[in-house]
């Protein structure tokens, strides 16, 4: 049996950043958000990912700034701990463990926890008291009121307000519907920071402002309506002058508090808005969207930054690798293809395929990219967009995009409106260097070859694509098509029959149909195994044909859900799904003995996988890890988790590199920083040596009134920065460094 100990399945980035509301640090320089079991810290100015707070062992479910110290953040997680971090340095300060995790996943309870003050790092929080069990599982249905005096929470049609001082719950309920067909269920809650007012969002898009809820009977509410679908989130600005709301329309609405219907809009932000948060000075807003994105918005309603995560909610295309940028390509936001760098775990860009205005409306059938393919050099991209899967009239377009060297992006070259009469099932480019040819196979029992070439009539070189050949086989529906490594053969599977065609003459060379079973996947061997053709059938068979003899070389009974050949070696990866877990086999087509087997990779089916080339190849000699030397296997489970395999050597290398790269994380790693950072560190060291107390003042400030006044104003830093330093230079600093917030601030600026 092959040893699997040094290869393990790891989650590789691209997790959700939109699960919880992002928070903005009080100085508006950082945005914190949860991402899987991490808390990620981004810069608001550069949108750069600075570092992450690692420590939780399960999904982080919430983060909030420490009200006592704005440089610290609390995070809670499904693993039953609440942790306190210094988010600038990424240091774990305290762990409160012992929060019970309920056995029943369906019942939710609101619990107040007393976090004991103690100097120890690990504290067990024991004091817990249940507030209510009438609570929605949606966290945005809970909000603290003015100064933390009360907490408001809602479930279905009931709004509850719990007053901490009185230890009493008042509840107000609405009717389920009224005459006009309103749907009154609560979807979100926000409390005014200075006023006794609770804003609630409802399923039909209404926003109600509740007042006077201290009295059980004499409460009042006013209703405002703009959203046409459920209000997803509400947020008051810190001063309480405005109320922000967002929903599926992806329009951020700013209501003026107490001014009735006066409002402002910021439309077309991306996916539907899930959360809104505001910075403590009210200068920045953050919205997180369903397409795994955080938008940073200035208070003047101008988008100033976008933090985009990997979108993988509805992946319809295969996972692909852009041959030029080596980025992972898959469905992005609606109607787009996203290019995502796996190495840097960073979203590169979106390519607008559909080029139509996306209407944010629930249940609307819109164009979606369903197929995409790159040619071998990355100079052509073919996409298929589709609409009307549910209704009878299917509309789809085949589009061909050429890479433009000047703009470094893909430019639309040809749109084919009626490429086939029915849905395109499979699509592939020929892999030869000289001529590029696209083959599409569709449900109208035809496959077509498309060429970019000269038109016989005009005798002019055209640079757009036209149909070159239409092939069919006994009116059977094709299921797959694939080119051999040298593009001399084209294999098209028609239900149970595989037909082999020569693309030069469009002659059918042979058919392979043994043993019977509808072909599910088809791929040619590479390099030394290029004489083999692999196919998987619905009858749980993996077959390998020898194309020289046209005979079945070997076959084995595995239920293969995905067959993925490595373009850089002979290896082929097969994911098989058996009794609620997925196994992986890696083998060479020439020999049926697997090189590597991994049982129970994950518990769901795997339908999409891709081999990603490594930047620098590993040089492992071990047979079981050799297949990962030149490329890395990524796969997407049905739960849309992107997983990969990591080897021991790789982890060693990463560990050593992370030790080398000890740069101070509080500053964005910009080119400027790399240039100036070293110099500053030296300077800082110098300063601390000569003036141990007066920690870090630049030379020009050392002599008050001297250097400062004689320097031209335009080379000086901003006055706000100088001021604090200037004042600080007059202070008699004490030795207890940690307690001095001003000192701390100076420290941050200098590093």
């Amino acid at each position: 049996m092959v040893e699997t100990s040094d290869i393990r399945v790891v989650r590789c980035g691209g997790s959700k950043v939109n699960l919880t509301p992002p928070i903005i640090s009080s100085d508006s320089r950082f945005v914190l958000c949860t991402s899987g079991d991490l808390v990620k810290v981004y810069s608001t100015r550069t949108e750069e990912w600075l570092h992450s707070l690692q420590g939780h062992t399960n999904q982080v479910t919430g983060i909030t700034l420490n009200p006592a110290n704005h440089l610290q953040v609390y995070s809670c997680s499904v693993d039953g701990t609440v942790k306190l971090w210094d988010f600038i340095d990424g240091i774990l300060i305290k762990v409160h463990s012992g929060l019970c995790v309920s056995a029943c996943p369906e019942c939710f309870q609101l619990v107040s926890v007393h976090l004991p003050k103690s100097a120890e790092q690990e504290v067990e929080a024991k004091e817990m008291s249940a507030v209510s069990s009438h609570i929605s599982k949606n966290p945005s249905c809970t909000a603290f009121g003015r100064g933390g005096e009360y907490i408001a929470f809602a479930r279905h049609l009931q709004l509850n307000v719990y007053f901490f001082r009185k230890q009493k719950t008042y509840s107000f309920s609405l009717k389920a519907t009224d005459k006009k067909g309103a749907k009154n269920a609560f979807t979100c809650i926000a409390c005014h920071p200075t006023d006794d007012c609770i804003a609630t969002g409802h399923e039909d898009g209404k926003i109600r402002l509740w007042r006077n809820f201290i009295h059980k009977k004499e409460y009042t509410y006013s209703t405002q309506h703009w959203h046409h679908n459920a209000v997803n989130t509400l947020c008051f600005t810190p001063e309480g002058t405005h109320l922000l709301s967002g929903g599926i329309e992806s329009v951020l609405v700013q209501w003026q508090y107490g001014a009735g219907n006066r409002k402002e809009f910021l439309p077309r932000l991306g996916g539907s808005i899930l959360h809104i948060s505001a910075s403590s000075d009210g200068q920045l807003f953050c919205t997180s969207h369903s397409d795994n994105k955080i938008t940073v918005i200035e208070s003047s309603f101008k988008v100033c930054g976008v933090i985009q995560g990997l979108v993988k909610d509805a992946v319809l295309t295969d996972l692909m690798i852009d041959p030029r940028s080596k980025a992972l390509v898959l469905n992005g936001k609606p109607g787009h293809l996203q290019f995502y760098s796996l190495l840097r775990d960073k979203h590169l860009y979106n390519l607008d395929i559909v080029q139509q205005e996306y209407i944010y409306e629930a249940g609307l059938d819109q164009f979606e990219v369903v197929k995409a393919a790159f040619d071998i050099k990355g100079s052509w991209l073919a996409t298929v967009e589709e609409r009307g899967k549910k209704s009878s009239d299917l509309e789809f377009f085949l589009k061909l995009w050429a890479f433009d060297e000047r703009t470094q992006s893909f430019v639309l070259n040809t749109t084919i409106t009626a490429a086939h009469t029915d849905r395109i099932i499979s699509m592939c480019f020929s892999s030869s260097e000289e001529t590029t040819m696209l083959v599409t196979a569709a449900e109208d029992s035809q496959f077509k070859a498309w060429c970019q070439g000269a038109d016989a009539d005009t005798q002019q070189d055209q640079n757009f694509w036209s149909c070159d050949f239409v092939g069919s086989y006994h009116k059977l529906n094709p299921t797959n098509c694939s080119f051999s490594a040298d593009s001399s053969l084209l294999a098209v599977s028609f239900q149970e029959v595989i037909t082999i065609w020569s693309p030069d003459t469009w002659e059918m060379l042979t058919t392979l149909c043994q043993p019977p079973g509808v072909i599910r996947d088809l791929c040619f061997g590479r390099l030394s195994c290029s004489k083999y053709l692999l196919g998987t059938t619905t009858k749980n068979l993996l077959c390998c044909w020898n194309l020289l003899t046209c005979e079945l070389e070997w076959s084995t009974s595995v239920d293969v859900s995905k067959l993925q050949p490595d373009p850089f070696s002979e290896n082929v990866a097969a994911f098989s799904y058996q009794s609620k877990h997925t196994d992986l086999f890696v083998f060479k087509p020439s020999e049926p003995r697997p090189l590597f087997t991994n049982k129970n990779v994950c518990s769901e089916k795997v339908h999409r996988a891709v081999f990603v080339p490594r930047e620098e190849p590993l040089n492992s000699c071990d047979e079981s890890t050799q297949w990962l030397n030149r490329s890395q296997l990524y796969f997407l489970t049905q739960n849309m988790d992107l997983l990969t395999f990591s080897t021991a050597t790789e982890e060693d290398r990463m560990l050593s590199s992370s030790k080398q790269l000890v740069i101070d994380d509080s500053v964005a790693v910009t080119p400027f920083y790399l240039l100036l950072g070293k110099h500053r560190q030296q300077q800082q060291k110098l300063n601390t040596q000569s003036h141990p107390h007066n920690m870090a003042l630049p030379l020009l400030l050392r002599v008050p009134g001297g250097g400062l006044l004689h320097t031209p104003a335009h080379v000086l830093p901003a006055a706000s920065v100088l001021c604090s330093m200037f004042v600080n230079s007059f202070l008699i600093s004490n030795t207890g460094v940690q307690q001095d917030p001003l000192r701390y601030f100076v420290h941050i600026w200098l590093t």
Partner: protein
Amino acid sequence: MCLFCVPMPYIRCVVWIMSVWMWKSPEVLLYCRCSEGREPVFISDMASFKPTKVQFLPKLGEKVTEDTLYWKNYKSPVQIKEFGAVTKIDFSPLAPHNYAVTASTRIHVYGLHSQEPIRSFTRFRDTAYGGSFRGDGKLLVAGSEEGLIRLFDISGRVALRQFTGHSKAVHVTSFLSDGFRVVSGSDDLTFRVWDVPSAVELSSITEHTDYIRALAPSKLNPDLFVTGSYDHTVKVFDMRSGSSVMTMQHGHPVECVLLYPSEALLVSTGGRYVKIWDLLKGGQELVSLKNHHKTVTCACLSSVGNKLLTGSLDRHVKVYNSSYKVVHNFDCDASILSMAVAPDDEVVAVGMTNGVLSVRHRKHKKDKETLTSRRRRGPSYRVFVKGKNFVPRQDDFLVSKPVKQYLRKYDKQLKSFEVSKALDTALQTWTRTSKPEVTVAVIIELNRRGTLKNALAGRNEESLTKILNFLLKHIFDPRFSRPLLTVGDIVLDLYRQVLHQSPVVERQLQRLMEVLGREAELQQELLQVLGILDTLFASLTPRKEVAALAALPVDQGPQLQAA
């Protein structure tokens, strides 16, 4: 504030402030970097509305090629009425390129742009035939029904010479390329060569067995000429040997022969066929064209690119490209008897049986320019002069302001979700008639948004007739039929209850039904034809045995170590 509205000294200051501001904001810096030397690129185009995409689907039918464009570029024909059928048109090889038109008992000489004859030769007692110029354009020779051949000076009126000898009508006459001899072919089965100075018959050869109706002298050799006759043959004669040196079988009575300028290729027309012969290969048939459906009476070559033109009794002139595919087609009112193209293709003159000479002149760029310059009227210089003459200095920092997105009216309405208004805008008369694809694009967009029903609902009789008229006009256009059928369905669904209230709408629906029924029948017939063709093709293709190789029993190869 527009940057160009600021007086000059301030611009530099503003630019400096801008540059400092840009240094602080990397996003703007990036924007500026992009704008250098290329069109402005939007860093975040997220907030912009994407306008409705109008699809330009190619029209079905003939492709527009350069040849088509070239031959389309003629003005509408000038019609000149002659006294009888125009049997011969010949252009003078000299500069003003006058042309002689032989019709009935006279020969008229027209100038290139005149509609009145410059000169006419009327001294024919019977029908004149085959008036053709000498190589220097000074003499003109013509045969006639009575058998006489007359030679005219182009400036005189009376015939300089008369050649007598033919016993029957002389249909074709021509100068040999030395200019001193005239060759003529006659219905008495002979052709004769005459000496011009002495008016003496030099030789008479009888080799054809039927009327001689076609003649083409060689321009390179004064002793060679080609004749075509109703005895289905084309012969090449050499006066030095005094007999035919080559005979080609055309297969139909030959109406016209034509030599290419290189004289390696020979064109003969007769019956419905146009045949090209390769003389260098000893008279081998190169191509046989059958593009007319009546007798091809005349052929000529264009002087630009030597394109072949043929005219026929079926009232068409066809233009062939160098690979002998028809690239253009002129339609005429009557059967064509004669045709000629002026040097540089300036004029195409076509003579017809009804005595009408139709002359097409080439369009010139100059004419077009005067037309367009009158039409286009831009904003006046005085209003838009601000900043136009500003010349940036070398170290100036270019700050490009974001380009404002201009939306069409229907896009603006779609942006604010006013669907009915957007449909109304798209159905405005001008859009509807001249740009139906825009109307259809808006309909498709509404359908995609799921609001087409809302947009179509609640209309009065007037606007409903507008929609129905549009449907009637375009529902069969294969480019538009799919979305328009959806519109038809929705209209019927919406207004079923109230249709009978308006006789206008009812009549239109009746018409729509009729037209749709006709179209369905047509489609059915087409499918039947397709089926017939399929069986024909299937029986024609040679049956190939596909080696069924993979029919081997299941190979129980070594199993994966899976279980």
